[in-house]
């Protein structure tokens, strides 16, 4: 095991447009690579999958010996994304009740029509335009509108929560070695404000219930199944952010990938039936979420090394997705790839809650956009990285339409 600064290089903005050569280096360096800052980086598929399924691995930042200025306030409970079972399971199950099976099996599927309508409206705005901004004009407004309707958040409030959301997303970005005290304070404050805002909306649903998740949460008749105020705030913040940030990137990465590979764009235009598997392939090839952090609750032996209790373990999901030991010809974008159990939605107990919704959104968005891409081209490749948006993958610049 070597001491290394790979994580620092991977998260360096200069390398973000194409971190894949660094991931190859990471896999080469061993399943587990200890970083100079004391964390452990894991980049091979089978080892990542094993850790994501290991019950001795914690997603809860409080499992780490207290570190300066954590992401969550003292005493406050993180959302279930960052909790362990059994508490994680309890809250995830409650959050799932109005959203998915077994209690609401048809919910997501019933949103198809809405999603198609929103997509159509957005595309109408493109008519007669020379140049469009895929992020601002398309990939961002779609999932935001969808999650707003699902949760019960007024779309007009978008500028308000976008600000909080940007702070929270930036706060979750992995940047080794950096002093995060200030950032973490900003994160805590944004989370608290956003939580209050959403609680307030939920309160109003008590008297004016409508067909959305906030109404369902706040009007749950069985006290055993009701979220506390704090849980409701945390869950609603989680859903609002998780529900759109990543999907924006998936749609955008899709457009970017297809514009870079016109033969595949052409193929999808001819074979629209490939779209669902193409979206899976995107989740493997250019996943919106590149890494997740975990903390061992016991010394965990893995591939000949030990991950010590309380250490920080960074799982490079995007690297696992390109592991040649798991995927044949992994650096090839193959929309019809069989046996594609990618790590794009994670795996194990924290497997993405919104996967079915995200899939429909991406399939609808790309399906509607592909026929229009015609002779479109990127204005600039790689796209410039908007300094204010710190998502793990940069959104690309506007593609140009020549027609």
């Amino acid at each position, binding site marked *: 095991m070597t001491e290394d600064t790979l994580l620092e290089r991977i998260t360096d903005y200069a390398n973000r447009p194409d971190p894949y050569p660094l991931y190859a280096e990471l896999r080469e360096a061993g399943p587990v690579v200890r970083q100079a800052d004391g964390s452990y980086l894991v980049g091979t598929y089978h080892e990542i999958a*094993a850790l994501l399924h290991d019950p001795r691995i914690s997603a809860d930042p409080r499992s780490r010996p207290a570190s300066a200025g954590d992401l969550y306030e003292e005493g406050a409970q993180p959302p279930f994304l960052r909790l362990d079972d059994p508490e994680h399971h309890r809250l995830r199950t409650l959050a799932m009740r109005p959203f998915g099976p077994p209690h609401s099996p048809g919910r997501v599927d019933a949103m198809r029509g809405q999603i198609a309508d929103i997509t159509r409206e957005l595309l109408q705005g493109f008519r007669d335009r020379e140049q469009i901004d895929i992020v601002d004009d398309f990939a961002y407004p779609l999932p935001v509108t969808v999650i707003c309707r699902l949760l019960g958040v007024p779309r007009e409030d978008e500028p308000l929560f976008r600000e909080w959301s940007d702070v929270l997303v930036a706060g979750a970005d992995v940047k080794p070695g950096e002093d995060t005290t200030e950032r973490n304070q900003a994160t805590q404050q944004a989370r608290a404000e956003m939580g209050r805002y959403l609680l307030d909306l939920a309160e109003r649903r008590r008297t004016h219930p409508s067909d959305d998740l906030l109404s369902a949460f706040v009007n749950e008749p069985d006290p055993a199944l009701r979220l506390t105020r704090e849980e409701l705030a945390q869950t609603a913040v989680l859903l609002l952010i998780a529900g759109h940030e990543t999907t924006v990137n998936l749609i955008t990465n899709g457009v970017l990938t297809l514009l870079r590979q016109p033969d595949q764009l052409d193929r999808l235009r001819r074979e629209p039936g490939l779209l669902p598997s193409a979206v899976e392939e995107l989740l493997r090839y250019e996943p919106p979420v590149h890494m997740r952090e975990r903390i061992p609750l016991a010394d965990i032996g893995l591939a000949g090394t030990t991950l010590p209790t309380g250490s920080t373990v960074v799982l490079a999901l995007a690297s696992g997705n390109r592991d040649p030991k798991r995927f044949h010809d992994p650096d090839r974008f193959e929309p019809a790839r069989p046996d594609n159990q990618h790590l794009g939605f994670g795996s194990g*107990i924290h497997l993405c809650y919104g996967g079915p919704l995200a899939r429909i959104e991406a399939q609808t968005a790309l399906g509607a956009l592909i026929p229009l891409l015609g002779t479109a081209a990127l204005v600039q490749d790689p796209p410039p990285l908007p300094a204010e948006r710190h998502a793990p993958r940069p959104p690309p610049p506007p593609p140009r339409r020549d027609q």
Partner: protein
Amino acid sequence: MTDDLRKGRIVIVGASLAGLRAAETLREEGFTGSLTVVGDEAYPPYDRPPLSKQVLLGQTAPDATGLPIRRDPDAEWRLGVRATGLDPMGKRVLLSDGDPLPFDRLLIATGTRARPWPNPEEAALEGVFTLRTCDDAGGLAARLAAGPRRVLVIGGGFTGSEIASACRERGLEVTVAERGPGPLVGALGGTLSKLAAAMHRGHGVDLRCGVTVTALHGDGGGRFIGADLSDGSRVEADVCVVALGAVRNVEWLADAGLAAGPRGVACDAGCRAFNMYGIVTDDVFVAGDVSRFPHPLFEYQMLSLEHWGNAVAQAEVAAHNMVSPGPLRRPHLAVPMFWSSQFGLNIKSVGVPSFSDQVVIAQGSLEARRLAMVYGYRGRVTAAVTVNMAKSLEYYQHLIETAAPFPPAPGAADRPMAAEIPVPSDVPDPKGLSHGPTVALTGYLPDRRLTVVQH
């Protein structure tokens, strides 16, 4: 050599899960010769697990469980035709209908059938069912839909328990009679059997354990009306489902000289059948429920499984080996895996729970109806069963594959106090149960004459 194996004539007997998956894999692996699939059921391959679940609940029609075809195997399908014999010297399969079918390589995938009620007259009463085929399921589902006053289920194994669960979900009164101390005890051992019993009773099943059914009764018109139990009691019911486990379909191989007996056709880890002397054949392969194969994780004892996942995995290995020369052949080493859904519980099993002396609850709890139970044998992990905790299964599978020490290492966030206290696994001798096991270790010997014939 490789080229030769890609050509020629391959015959598959058994047109169900294993047969279909093998046929598809043969083509995937480049087999270009002629392929014939013989199956005695009149239907194209269909899936059985839904038959005791969605079909009995009326959610899926009995003829709507057709297996998805992953790729067209370009085969000649001889459906509704039974293989009646195998001539190993002449390399021909004898058929109930038409000329013998010559082959260069043969795959035996004839699976199992439901063990019938031992008294044929009683078994023939109208209202007495077994459950293995889609016709069985269709008939039973129609009877359940008609709203019988009570259903009697004989046998508290997985199938019997699922049937009872479906009946309760439909609001039907149901009695389960099990000879052993509790439902699922043979498959899961004492602790989880107690949970299963609580689930039965909690859902309103009239569960009778430690009893056998001694006679089925009909009215004058040959209609089932009730049964006598060994404790002297009598159950009045209009429907009876006999869920006593499965019988391997090996009779057609009686004169084939193969190591075929009541526990299946013995084969090596490469799915090649043994003949009765324990010599491995090179042209006869076996896959699915009808097979018995050695497994290194379980001291190389021969395993007999009735598991969907095993049928698929083994069929793929068998097909690969049928078209690959020696050094390229693969072993079938998949860890046994099984699932069942009943009374709102999702039960998943990995490994061989009956190959155990102790168990611990490693995550969750019985009270929460959500747990992972880990089974150990002589200090190593040999199996795990999750209840409503399927996402943990992979981790325990890894422990089994690596023969990790038992009890498993501490550290799980949801590890209960009970994890410190292994208790006896309490798996009874299968002979004391009503139903046959869905997974059994059957010793080391491939010779059919050394296999004691039961029943």
